């Protein structure tokens, strides 16, 4: 039998191991989420990130090596975003009927997302650099990190806050909307896509296709709105 260490050296440096593990860990997390009847607390994104993170720590493999394999999954984010065009076309009549509500909710939501986060953190005494890193936390990591960096924030901190906001919104949205007795899935989806970008949109698609479609639209629109609003809001700081 060949040296097990040699096999490990091959595996840990090959994209195959980390790509396979990413998919298997996701299937496990998705199975757990289904078994829990899609209970929002049992969020498959959170479970996968925690499990995969633990595997990396236990094996001592550096993140760069993991990403060599996982990048193939990461790459699909682009085409998956384009794919939202399909449910958009299918529900185009509903989208057209809700253009005004969407525009108003976008402006209100984008301002509240930025201002409320900054105000709460400022009340706790966080310094300006932390506030700037926090302000764009409701939009996709790519946009948020660029906005944060342009204004003197810390992009790495922004990335942590973006992903955490995504998971928080995905976990909170269903119990919150049920408690408020809101049954309009277009409105529910729009709110979670605006608040929690793609991770909120992923949750919305597992609940209802209309919710997913409106979440996707909100995610795209808020990326634009936040990149305009945050620089303005930060002038007052």
């Amino acid at each position, binding site marked *: 039998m060949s040296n097990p260490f040699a096999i490990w050296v091959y595996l840990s440096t090959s994209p195959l191991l980390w790509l396979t593990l990413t998919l298997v860990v996701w299937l496990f997390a998705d199975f757990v989420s289904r078994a829990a009847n899609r209970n929002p607390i049992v969020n498959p994104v959170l479970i996968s990130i925690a499990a995969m993170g633990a595997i990396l720590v236990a094996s001592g493999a550096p993140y760069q090596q993991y990403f060599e394999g996982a990048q193939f999954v990461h790459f699909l984010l682009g085409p998956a975003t384009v794919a939202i065009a399909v449910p958009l076309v299918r529900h185009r009549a509903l989208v057209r009927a809700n253009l005004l509500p969407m525009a108003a909710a976008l402006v209100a939501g984008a301002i509240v997302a930025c201002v409320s986060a900054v105000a709460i*953190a400022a009340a706790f005494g966080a310094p300006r650099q932390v506030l700037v890193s926090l302000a764009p936390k409701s939009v996709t990591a790519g946009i948020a990190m660029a906005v944060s960096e342009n204004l003197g924030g810390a992009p790495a901190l922004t990335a942590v806050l973006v992903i955490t906001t995504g998971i928080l919104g995905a976990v909170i949205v269903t119990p919150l909307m049920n408690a408020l007795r809101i049954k309009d899935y277009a409105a529910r989806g729009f709110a979670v896509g605006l608040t929690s970008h793609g991770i909120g949109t992923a949750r919305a698609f597992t609940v209802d296709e209309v919710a997913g479609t409106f979440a996707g639209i909100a995610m795209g629109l808020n990326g634009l709105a936040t990149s305009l609003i945050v620089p303005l809001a930060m002038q007052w700081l």
Partner: protein
Amino acid sequence: MIRALALLLACQLSGEILARALSLPIPGPVIGLALLAVGVLLHARATGADPSRIESTELGRTAGALLGSLGLLFVPAGVGVVQQLPVVGAYGLALAAALVGSTVLTLIVTVYVFLLVKKLTGKAQAGGDNP
């Protein structure tokens, strides 16, 4: 599936090129989304196909597969972020309060403004009211 993937990638690529050429503050894939939606509707108009039946096309099935596992696609970036957790540093409590408070507040304000304007304009169809 390959044809559908090629179409999705071509839309993303056109979006990325447009975003850079015109220095738009919108990500390439979001522009690609708009291009694909317009393209599908124009194609349907030209061929007389019913765009509401898009789910059963090759593009529809591929899009359904991607969107059905959308959460998976955030895992690689999320794992990287967990390793950065120490950057939260001394402001962990302030940031936790800000994120929880702001997330709840943003969800509530967004959903109520949406519903209020929908009620005021009154034209919106009841199709979004799933029981």
